[in-house]
């Protein structure tokens, strides 16, 4: 089917630039052994700024997991992990990555081997087990940055513990890299990191406009930079451009979904192997997923960062991220997003891969229905492992949900 002009207009020109940047990044990472740079594997929510200050190339197995999922290689790789004895019930990022690491398979021929591993458990306990596996396989030093879970608050003793670990982390890096840590440089990296996060939040905020110039699916795509290159000027430059493009779209009245009538909020990670299908399915109902809790997580704890004291404030910012807080705290974030983006419904992805994100969703759903009175639905998947996903089942659910939304009619203020 040839693209219509409207469809062409809806494409982001920044998408091409973003692919280029990601390609450059992976080439640099994969040729690190030739350039003499060290490579660290780090968790997506891990404190990356000290690595950048040390000239270490950070590599994110979770970003790679997303690539695996989007390129439909997840099922095969997960099956390989199962053959090694890993249960099908485990996180599919971890399973796919474990299989890749053993056989250099997967997109871009596998990730470059790590010289060190940096695991921050502010997202889950899975990463700790996963990084232990990689530490045995690659036999390289492992640093665990332990961020105590904040059920209701961030306790004083936890604050001290995390702050001390920053010093230990720096000591660890100095040992592996055999050079001194440059605090001035780290201040600069910290500033760039915060700038990048602010810009990313601005990009996401553009979706508050009606009709929205972007969807959560676009956010899932553009997220890669704030994850992988946080703390560099590349991120700042790119998101500045992207924000520009958002503004142009708003000015020109370009909407991400043709005839946007309903606005929805997505919770949890994406279903990486069905992005297009889900996007089309909702669009066919004139529904735009305007925002999501996942991509927002990379700028959610900005309020704790002190620009002039990045290293100290990092402790709190990295501990109080979205997944490291209690269910009721998460619900509050969702309430705020419902208001900010003026959504008509909540789509919860019940993600078998991610227990810390998914358990508690039923309670959040009830709170949302009570406090915000909007319909909610649940869609189950294993975000990277496509083998058990049933399109027809998902379509039936979405249809039923959209029917409820349609009967209620769009929220006041909807342009029509």
């Amino acid at each position: 089917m040839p693209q219509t002009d409207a469809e062409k207009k809806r494409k982001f020109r920044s998408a091409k630039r973003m692919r280029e940047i990601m390609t450059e990044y992976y080439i640099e990472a994969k040729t690190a052994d030739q350039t003499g740079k060290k490579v660290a594997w780090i968790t997506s929510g891990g404190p990356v700024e000290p690595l950048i200050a040390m000239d270490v190339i950070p590599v994110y197995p979770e970003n790679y997991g997303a690539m695996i999922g989007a390129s439909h290689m997840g099922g095969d790789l997960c099956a390989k992990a199962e053959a090694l004895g890993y249960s099908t019930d485990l996180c599919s990022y971890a399973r796919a990555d474990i299989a890749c690491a053993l056989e250099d398979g997967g997109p871009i021929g596998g990730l470059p081997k790590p010289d060190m591993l940096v695991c921050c458990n502010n997202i889950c306990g899975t990463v700790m087990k996963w990084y232990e596996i990689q530490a045995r396989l690659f036999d390289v030093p492992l640093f665990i940055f332990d961020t105590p879970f904040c059920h209701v608050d961030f306790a004083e003793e936890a604050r001290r513990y995390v702050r001390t670990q920053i010093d230990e982390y720096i000591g660890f890096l100095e040992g592996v890299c055999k050079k001194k840590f440059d605090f001035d440089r780290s201040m600069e990296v910290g500033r760039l990191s915060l700038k990048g996060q602010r810009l990313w939040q601005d990009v996401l905020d553009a979706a508050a406009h009606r009709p929205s110039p972007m969807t959560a699916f676009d956010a899932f795509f553009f997220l890669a930079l704030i994850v992988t290159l946080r703390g560099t000027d590349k991120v700042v430059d790119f998101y500045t451009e992207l924000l520009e493009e958002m503004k142009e779209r708003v000015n020109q009245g370009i909407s991400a979904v043709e005839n946007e009538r309903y606005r929805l909020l997505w919770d949890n990670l994406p279903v990486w192997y069905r992005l297009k299908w889900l996007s089309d399915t909702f669009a066919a109902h004139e529904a735009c997923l305007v925002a999501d809790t996942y991509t927002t997580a990379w700028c959610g704890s900005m309020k704790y960062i002190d620009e002039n004291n990045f290293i100290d404030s990092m402790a709190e910012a990295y501990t109080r991220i979205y997944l490291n807080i209690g269910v009721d705290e998460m619900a509050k974030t969702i309430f705020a997003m419902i208001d900010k983006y003026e959504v008509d419904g909540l789509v919860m992805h019940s993600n078998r891969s991610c227990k810390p994100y998914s358990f508690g969703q039923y309670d959040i759903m009830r709170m949302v229905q009570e406090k915000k009175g909007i319909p909610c639905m649940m869609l189950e998947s294993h975000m990277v492992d496509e083998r058990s996903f049933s399109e027809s089942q998902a379509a039936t659910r979405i249809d039923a949900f959209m029917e409820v939304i349609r009967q209620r009619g769009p929220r006041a203020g909807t342009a029509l």
Partner: protein
Amino acid sequence: MDKLNEFIEVAGEPGAYARRIRASGRSVIGYYCSYAPEEIIHAAGLHPVRLFGTGGDSGIADRHLQAYCCSLVRGALAESLTGGLDYLDGTVFPHTCDSIQRLSDIWRLNTGHGFFADVVLPVKLTGESARQYLIDVLQRFKRDLESYFGLTVTEESLRSSIRIYNTIRSCLNEIYELKSRNPGLLTGRELFSIVRASMVMDREGLRDKLQALLRELREGVPGRDGRGRRLMLVGNACNHPDVYDLIERSGGQVVWDDLCTGTRWFSGAIREEGDPVASIAERLFERQVCPSKHKSPTARGEHLVAQAREHGAEGVIFLYLKFCDPHSFDYPYLKGYLKDAGIPSMLLEIEDTLPPEGQILTRIETFTQMLGPETGAALTGASRTGREG
């Protein structure tokens, strides 16, 4: 043996026992994890009781938890929501796996059992900062208990609790050792009942009863002969005494374990000198590690092989609850470590109920039969020093 009867009875109906304690005027505090700082609860004059999450997979948990959640967490919530835990005056959630972490949130928001505390332990149990943090966390827990119940936990009462716990743990360890040396001494089900009841019974009384039982066991029980291949049981929490019977009927016997409701709960002693809270922390820090905590990438594998060798285990049965992330991640590597040490293993994954009996019997039988010719190597001095071999 008469002395066993009470253990068996309490293990069969832990809730009924806890209710009696409460009726006698003592407050009961429940917990689900072997990292719970029980000594502090006990020193506060409260009664710590281990909960087993045996509420069954009734539909009520579906209102809060997806089907891909382990049966322990689902059962725990179901038991609370259906009123089965009405004897509790409080619950304590040490931080362990992602599922318990969220259960704690759901619990705090939906159940009402009085006192509630998250004890957010460090996840890594190495390094000075984690060591200090663990002490701080226990101190906070002590303060929380004191302020909620309006009492003071004195240093003296802590010391006394530590001594009681040390005796209890060393008794259990010796009972395990005796059974390992002479497997016929106790059936698997009996051993299971002793440990399980120990997590529930009044601790002073328990100490005396365990000591009495131990005196009797030291004499040995003539006429009882343990048969079957020497096996070790490894996993999370075991709620199925039937498993022991099935193993025994399939030509095996459990001579040691690495279970949350087994050696992981009672291993390690607490230093009786120095600051008591710091000493309690030290034991938790140093004790045999649970897979939801980090000691080193290879700590559990090394420990498992050492234990299996020390107890002359000919094979290992991994008994896992389905949907348990920490254990499932460790499985391939543990299996590999055992294999390299020449110890075969098998995996039994279960949900809240056991699979049909015939199926388990066949699987275990096949396993025991594949263990190769019996060496007849009962635990001798030689095999006991096989640790380095």
